[in-house]
């Protein structure tokens, strides 16, 4: 009934060729007491329907802030967006009115947060919080919203959904809570889901279940998915392409398997080398030396240069663009880019 209406409505929408979401030269700063923290410094990425983009990077590299800017949930102030575009189906959301923007949230673009226990309201039942999506955006009755909530809970395989619909978040296990978050994001069948470290707070076994469920639902609804994580293991199974972030910039983009096989940025190289591997059991684990830069004082040139084993004078003087990456003979590598002056050397001499 209602799902049929939704589908019909979706088909009536003008088909849009090109990426669902296109972020261009996005900058986000925070005005703090100590100065302006430049959290995002010119991010570009795009996601199409059915595609999964994994965003990778150390803590503080700006992954979440970028996502929050896309969702439009940054607190402004202290945040401000001095430059950039966030195009959704070709329209820049940064120039839209508040109300139009709100209607995209939840309906077209939904977000899954890391810690479901704190992200869900502790004093409202999960049934209420799920049903609220339909009440706020579709204007359905309380009873109908409840029914929808049960359906959603069944959809994400919560056992005995009918009996548990009135339970509160703290009464569920961590894995179930995260599935409820997924259900909430899925409720209105959005075009794009942003999952910010959806499994970090979970046990390893539960992580896999939740990730599988998310991937399965994404394929079923043909949604775009932005998966933020620092877990390289998760990425390999589900992502189509990867964007690696460092100090608020994308330093490398590549289709997932190529990135694993042949990184073209020393930072990515470092990240990959720091994954524990079975064949290196007993050996000391590699770690990138040094610390991520202070966002109040990002070093001149390439932000990674103080930690980079390849750094030369040029790296300290100029900020590298995201160069297209090619084979040694010059054949372009589809979808690959590296913001390193020495990408060739990094890519080829392993």
């Amino acid at each position: 009934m209602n799902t049929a209406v939704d589908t019909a409505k979706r088909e009536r929408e003008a088909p849009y060729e090109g990426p669902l979401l296109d972020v261009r030269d996005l900058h986000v700063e925070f005005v703090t007491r100590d100065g302006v923290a430049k959290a995002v410094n010119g991010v570009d990425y795009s996601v199409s329907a059915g595609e999964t983009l994994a965003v990778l990077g150390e803590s503080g590299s700006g992954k979440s802030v970028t996502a929050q800017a896309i969702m439009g949930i940054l607190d402004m102030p202290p945040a401000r967006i001095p430059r950039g575009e966030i195009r959704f189906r070709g329209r820049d959301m940064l120039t839209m009115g508040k109300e139009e923007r709100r209607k995209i949230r939840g309906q077209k673009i939904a977000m899954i947060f890391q810690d479901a226990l704190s992200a869900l309201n502790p004093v409202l039942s999960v049934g209420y919080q799920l049903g609220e999506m339909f009440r706020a955006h579709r204007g359905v009755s309380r009873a109908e919203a409840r029914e929808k909530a049960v359906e959603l809970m069944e959809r994400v395989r919560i056992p005995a959904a009918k009996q548990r619909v009135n339970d509160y978040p703290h009464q569920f296990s961590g894995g179930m809570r995260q599935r409820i978050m997924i259900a909430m994001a899925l409720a209105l069948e959005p075009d794009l889901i942003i999952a910010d470290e959806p499994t970090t707070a979970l046990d390893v076994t539960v992580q896999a279940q939740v990730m599988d469920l998310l991937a399965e639902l994404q394929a079923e609804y043909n949604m775009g998915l932005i998966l933020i994580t620092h877990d390289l293991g998760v990425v390999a199974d589900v992502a189509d392409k990867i964007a690696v972030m460092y100090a608020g910039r994308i330093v490398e983009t590549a289709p997932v398997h190529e990135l694993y096989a042949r990184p073209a940025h020393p930072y990515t190289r470092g990240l990959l080398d720091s994954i524990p591997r079975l064949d290196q059991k007993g050996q000391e684990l590699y770690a990138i030396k040094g610390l991520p830069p202070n966002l109040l004082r990002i070093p001149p040139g390439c932000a990674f240069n103080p930690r980079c084993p390849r750094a030369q004078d040029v790296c300290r003087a100029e900020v590298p663009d995201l160069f297209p990456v090619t084979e040694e003979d010059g054949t372009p590598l589809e979808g690959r880019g590296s913001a390193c002056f020495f990408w060739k050397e990094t890519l080829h001499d392993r």
Partner: protein
Amino acid sequence: MGSYVLRRVLQMIPVFFGTTLLIFVMVYSLPGDPVTALFGDKAADPAVVASIKHTYYLDQPIWKQYLHYMGNLFQGDFGTSFTGRPVSDIMADAFPVTIRLALMAFVFEMVLGLALGVLSGLKRGSIADTLVLILTLVVISIPVFVLAYIAQTVFATNLGWVTPTVQDSYDLTQLVLPATVLGSLSLAYVARLTRTSIGENLRADYIRTAVAKGLPRRTIISRHLLRNSLIPVVTFLGTDLGALMGGAIVTEGIFNVQGIGNVLYRAINQKEGPTVVGIVTVLVIVYLVASLLVDLLYAVLDPRIRYA
């Protein structure tokens, strides 16, 4: 839940006996002889004094007096005051006045306190917020009696809207000014508590989720923000209702409101044991019941709290 309530009620029993005994001992160890004082400047006939003491059990050791008092209390007899009026009569006159005064103060502090708290909590750093902060700070730092005298001077002496003291304690309109003074301190606390609580909850993850869900701002505030922010405020208000009834002594004295506070004040001055103990006993019970209700209300508001 049922067993929790039962346990709490059972816990009240020792508290009840403990406090009454304490009050009893305190009143009876006040310096001076209340019976001799009844005669004022006239020399008292020792025989009369002895007979009065006998009727009021004052010639007995204190533990006997206490047992006697408690025995009567459980038959619903609060004893007789030195003037010969049953203490239950005195309380029946005074309690309704105090209850009205406390309820008016309560409504005042709740409505205005919450409104100011929500306003300044949502608009942190605004002029309204700053004003609320300054105003509440002033109210908190000024003693109640000073506030009462200021109110009297302004509204009675200068503006002439009311009489300085209450003429008829059963007239609700005359109780407005004392109730406002009585509720003002708690109002300041309610406003500040609400403001802090809203500020904390505004930054909470679940509010960010509510925004990400695309809910309208008014739904976010009423359904998500207020529901959570008001939990500590409601608890405060609940406890305060009990405190307002016992705490009206100063206000009732200044405005001449013939409530419990005034009666209690007079009774203490005259070392009227039965009246003091009777009133305090009732106040203790009110307070105990109120705090039980607050705890139960807390469980209703916050589903994470379950009493077993």
